[in-house]
């Protein structure tokens, strides 16, 4: 990393314990420059002392660095493949543990809960949904989303092979929708940092989509090891549409269940 950026990341780590030192530099730099512009700072050289002395600024910057953009049924083809290729495997277990890492504001988690419900598996499923952004987790827990987005999500849901009317899963007023309580009942929300925290659970299925793209290769490898150690033999790993195991030391430990949709199965 370039010196200014490096110094800022060191300061954040020392003072707040969040470790962004192995995140992609172009991404980090862009977010910092955005914050420089929004806060009316003259240039990046002032950011370090703001981080050290101004907690409001620091917490804004932390939010900037955690990108929480997400959607329900993002990449409908992925969910379709989950139904077709993964559900039959999950059906063979008496109980199912899912770890959803980097779950952001929860849209993906509710999508998976809906899918499990439609496949008759939700009763014996626990979803551990984690993120290191507490603000995002709080929103996820609330399950309240903007009504304006529902049209797009409904399209995604239908394209993903949804079996019901999407309206069945939430109640809406003019601006907002709230997800049904029955979807929330088996979700455990928890704060977990993939960089600094350790193995999570004996999971049958791990989803971590569009989080690793923000990491440098070495950190990707470290996190891949955590996923590997958290999965049971025969467990399933789902990555984002543009993520893979190509650069991972562990690529030979998995078979590809669906190459296009980045679904992998840990070998026995």
């Amino acid at each position, binding site marked *: 990393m*370039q010196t200014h950026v490096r110094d800022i990341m060191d300061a954040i780590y020392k003072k707040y314990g969040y470790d962004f030192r192995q995140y*992609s*530099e*172009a*991404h980090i*730099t*862009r*977010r910092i420059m955005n914050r420089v512009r929004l806060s009316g700072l003259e240039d990046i050289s002032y950011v370090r002392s703001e981080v050290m002395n101004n907690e409001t600024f620091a917490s804004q910057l932390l939010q900037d660095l955690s*990108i929480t*953009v*997400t959607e329900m049924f*993002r990449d*409908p083809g992925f969910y379709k493949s989950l139904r077709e290729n993964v559900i039959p495997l999950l059906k063979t277990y008496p109980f199912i543990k899912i770890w959803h890492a980097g779950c952001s504001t929860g849209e993906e988690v509710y999508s998976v809960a809906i899918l499990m419900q439609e496949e008759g598996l939700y009763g014996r499923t626990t979803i551990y949904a984690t993120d290191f952004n507490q603000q995002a987790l709080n929103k996820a827990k609330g399950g309240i989303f903007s009504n304006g987005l529902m049209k797009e999500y409904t399209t995604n849901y239908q*394209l993903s092979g949804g079996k019901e009317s999407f309206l069945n899963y939430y109640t809406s007023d003019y601006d907002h929708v709230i997800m049904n309580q029955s979807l929330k009942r088996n979700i455990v929300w928890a704060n977990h940092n993939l960089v600094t925290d350790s193995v999570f659970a004996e999971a049958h299925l791990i989803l971590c989509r*569009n989080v690793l*793209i*923000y990491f440098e*290769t070495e950190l990707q490898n470290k996190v891949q090891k955590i996923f590997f150690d958290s999965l049971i033999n025969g467990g399933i790993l789902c990555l984002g*549409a*543009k*993520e893979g195991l190509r*650069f991972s030391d562990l690529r030979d430990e998995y078979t590809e269940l669906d190459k296009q949709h980045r679904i992998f199965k840990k070998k026995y």
Partner: protein
Amino acid sequence: MRYEAIVIGVSSGGLNAMKVMFTLLPKDFSIPIVIVQHIGPRSDNQWIKLVNDKNKFDIKEADEKEKIENGRIYVAPPNYHLLIERSKTFSLTIDERVNFARPSIDVLFESAAEVYRDKLIGVVLTGSNADGTNGMKRIKKYGGLTIVQDPATAESSYMPASVMATMPVDHISPLDGIVNLLIGVTGPKR
């Protein structure tokens, strides 16, 4: 050779424009070209096949961490921003849309300018949106070469005109002129 990379931003009307450019561009073009075409989030980038006549070029969707190589053409994947790292590899992000777009031209151009500095060529073609203007400013600031399609010849004039309205552009030219310019300043593959 002075320039090391070309970034191209294109929006509505882009299909025809890219087709014309790829038909005129010689096969052994020497430096990498990176393209942001505004596309819907669920698009599958099939337009690449449509404009790549007889598979003349090696065009692919950029992958994260992929090394940028000479003579190749890369396209931003749908629903991701495309950025360039100092190691001359790609990064993808799903940050908010910029100028209503993801991928956004500005995001690519600004990160490319930081890396290639005065060795970058920025090209803005047809489009009905102001995306690309900030990116071109950044390229100019670092001494790179800026080229826009002559708005009078563009299917949608707004995007190139927006660049021209905010800064002095080095070249304003129809598509065939742009291709000649690119050949002229980069030279054939050695």
